[in-house]
């Protein structure tokens, strides 16, 4: 249905797409994979009209097309749903669905007809919501489905899903996938871009891998296993995706207790819960999105106040982030774009920021010292940047995350909280960050790692706490830390599939 031949796109200094081919059949889900910078987004932008290719051709149903804008691509039949839902939360669901095609009489929009049209559009998805309310009132998953409904209604042939599951929890992913399978059955061609390999195996029929702007392989999903897929993406055999951690799970190691938290949280938000953290221990926090796991971290870091903390020397106040930092805590938040990096400041300034804030405004860090610090962490964490003066906003997601990590490592904290440290990061950086976690623990730092990737938790955690329905419900140690035990603890009393 959609065929791309020898597509080339040049940017000053780089060849973003080099003779790339790709084809999509009606009624299939075709996953497009590759590390950051492999050319996935460039390819998609050529398809949606955001970029004009420099060479090659795109054919839709045999006819050559060259969309010049998103709306032109839509008219041709190519619709896109992005990671950050590109709809307007300040308009109603109906307005969003019908935007640009509102039923009108004498130039005036017929509200009632629009509401009906919107309900009709949502019907096939089994979504029964009040379409006259603002889109902003609904969860990300519902917005995602509204976005799909709009894209399908507008385009109807090809649907591109660009990282659609990045901010969804497991139940919502399932709900979304049901919708996608329904569309597939209706004969749409679906391009699926995702970092989550599990989801790729779960949903797609075929896979195309890009690397460094080149086409590497297109294969039926059944013909590939996880390892060979990763090899295609990285171009070299990954030693082991996750360090062999099973041995250390055999025995529960007794560690000197360092921090004790009591009565953290507040009814309705999370907890209250108690937590003891030993020196050099990695505590994992597992749970679905919205289970209260991020809120738990926010209490521990003083972003919310409630509960008390104590170390060997006595009580420590942690009711604001500043106090928590003074107590030697650090927090690398989940959403690094809004909560982590300061985009326009340089790598050097971002790394020095927390240290400078602790020293106070009156004692500036000499520039030479900041530079030394930046050079050290650029090397140690392998931050890929042309130099330390580059604005952090210009780096890739994985490198931004490393800068945020460097900021906290420079503080030499005793207790570091990492909320989804590898989300949205390509496989190479993923492995590096896991390696780093092991290294830090070796140095005696205590960590709290929140992650929705079970493999990751199993790989790094000495102890896993499971959060469900805004309470800490289970604690797994040693050999108990296995995917099946964690899933069982998360799922108990929780009928999967009952959504919205």
């Amino acid at each position, binding site marked *: 249905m959609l065929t791309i031949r020898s597509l080339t796109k040049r940017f000053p200094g780089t060849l973003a797409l080099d003779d790339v081919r790709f084809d999509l059949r009606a009624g299939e889900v075709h996953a497009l994979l590759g590390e950051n910078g492999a050319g996935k987004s460039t390819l998609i932008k050529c398809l949606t009209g955001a970029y004009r290719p420099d060479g090659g051709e795109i054919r839709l149903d045999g006819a050559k097309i060259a969309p010049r804008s998103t709306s032109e691509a839509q008219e041709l039949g190519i619709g896109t749903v992005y990671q950050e839902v590109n709809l307007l939360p300040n308009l109603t669901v109906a307005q969003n669905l019908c935007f640009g095609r509102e039923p009108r009489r004498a130039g005036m929009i017929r509200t009632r007809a629009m509401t009906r049209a919107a309900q009709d559009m949502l019907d096939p998805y089994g979504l029964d919501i009040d379409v006259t309310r603002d889109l902003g009132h609904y969860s990300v998953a519902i917005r995602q489905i509204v976005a799909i409904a709009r894209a399908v209604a507008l385009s109807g042939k090809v649907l591109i899903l660009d990282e659609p599951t990045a901010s969804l929890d497991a139940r919502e992913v399932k709900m979304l996938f049901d919708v996608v399978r329904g569309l597939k059955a209706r004969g749409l061609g679906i391009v699926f871009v995702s970092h989550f390999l599990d989801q790729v195996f779960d949903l797609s029929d075929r896979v195309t891998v890009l690397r460094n702007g080149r086409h590497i392989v297109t294969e039926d999903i059944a013909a590939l296993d996880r390892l060979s897929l990763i090899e295609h993406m990285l171009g070299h055999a990954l030693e082991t995706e996750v360090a062999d951690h099973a041995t250390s799970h055999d025995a529960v190691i007794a560690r000197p207790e360092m921090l004790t938290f009591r009565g953290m949280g507040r009814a309705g938000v999370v907890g209250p819960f108690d937590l003891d953290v030993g020196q050099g221990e990695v505590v994992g926090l597992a749970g679905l999105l919205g289970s209260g796991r991020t809120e738990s971290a926010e209490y521990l870091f003083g972003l919310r106040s409630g509960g008390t903390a104590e170390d060997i020397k006595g009580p420590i106040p942690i009711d604001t982030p500043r106090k928590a930092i003074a107590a030697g805590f650090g927090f690398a938040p989940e959403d690094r774009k809004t909560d982590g990096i*300061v985009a326009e400041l340089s790598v050097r300034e971002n790394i020095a920021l927390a240290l400078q804030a602790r020293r106070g405004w009156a004692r500036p860090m000499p520039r030479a010292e900041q530079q030394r610090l930046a050079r050290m962490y650029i090397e140690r964490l392998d931050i890929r940047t042309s130099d330390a003066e580059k604005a952090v906003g210009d780096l890739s997601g994985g490198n931004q995350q490393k800068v945020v990590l460097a900021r906290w490592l420079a503080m030499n904290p005793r207790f570091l909280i990492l909320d989804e440290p590898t989300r949205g990061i390509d496989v190479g950086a993923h492995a590096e960050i896991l390696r780093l976690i092991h290294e830090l623990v070796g140095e005696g730092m205590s960590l709290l790692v929140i992650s929705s990737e079970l493999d990751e938790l199993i790989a790094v955690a000495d102890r896993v706490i499971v959060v469900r329905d805004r309470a800490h419900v289970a604690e797994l140690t040693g050999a108990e830390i296995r995917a099946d035990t964690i899933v069982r603890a998360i799922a108990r009393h929780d009928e999967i599939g009952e959504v919205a």
Partner: protein
Amino acid sequence: MQRTLTQLAPQLVTLAAVVLLVWVVFPGFLDIRLVDGRLVGPVIDILKRGAPVALLATGMTLVIATRGIDLSVGTVMAICGAVAAWAIDGGFGLGGALALAIVAGLVAGLWNGTLVAIVGIQPIVATLILMTAGRGIAQLITEGRILTFTHDGFAWLGSGTLLAVPVPAVIWVLTGIAAALLMRRTALGLLVEAVGINRRAAALAGVNATVLLIAVYMASGLCAALAGIITAADIRGADANNAGLWLELDAILAVVIGGNSLLGGRFSVAASLIGAMIIQTIDTGILLAGFPSEYNLVIKAALVLVILVLQSPRFAAEWRTWRAARAEPRPAGQVQEDAP
């Protein structure tokens, strides 16, 4: 030093161009003479008359760097001028009057800062409140009249000279230097920029964003107080209706002409001060060039528009592409490969 000069180059070039333009139409523009122990000449006049806007622009730069804006500074000038005049008349003496006026400015800044940083109101609305209500408060103090006073010491601040230089010019230059040093010799500049770009991330990194924001609005209030004192001293009276009227807009313009982004982040106090001087040179230049006074605003608006267009991000980008295209006729990809 070299780096600072490079950074200020666009503003300096603009200032030079405006000065050149005025000099062409009015050749006596650059003359400076010493008369009765004080320097006189159009340039000196610009330095003196530009004082209120330069002072306001200093504080405004910091506020804008935090992604804020302070619409109330003109009104705060009126309040502080009124407070100073009232205090002089009430026998508080020079020190008392100045102290009271400065406290008034700081309180106004504290009010704005609290609304922005603690209550969480958008800066433009938060400061609009004081902008509207403040003039009423100033009129309340002066009871709707122009409050005049006779006090030579106070008047010296507006019309006296120090080492032959007009005192207002000395005050704004010193304030500007103090602000720039305070920002760049300490870590304040970095912290202000961090808060302006991403307040939440800065707060999570341990920056005390709330206190910093309040401090920045108080600094703006302080600058407005100084400007208000100078203005009142110059006319030997406080005019609650007209003192500082619409000067906040000139100050914002100065900051923007200085190349600072209204979206916060990177800032330069020096660039804003040059911006303030550009505006004042245009104002004075139009008068000197002998245009009928009714043409002033149109010419000013046209010049400002030209400067803004030349400085706009889009224009700069187009200009770079154009120059790159002329310098390197070959496609960019090839250039890379040819490079050693």
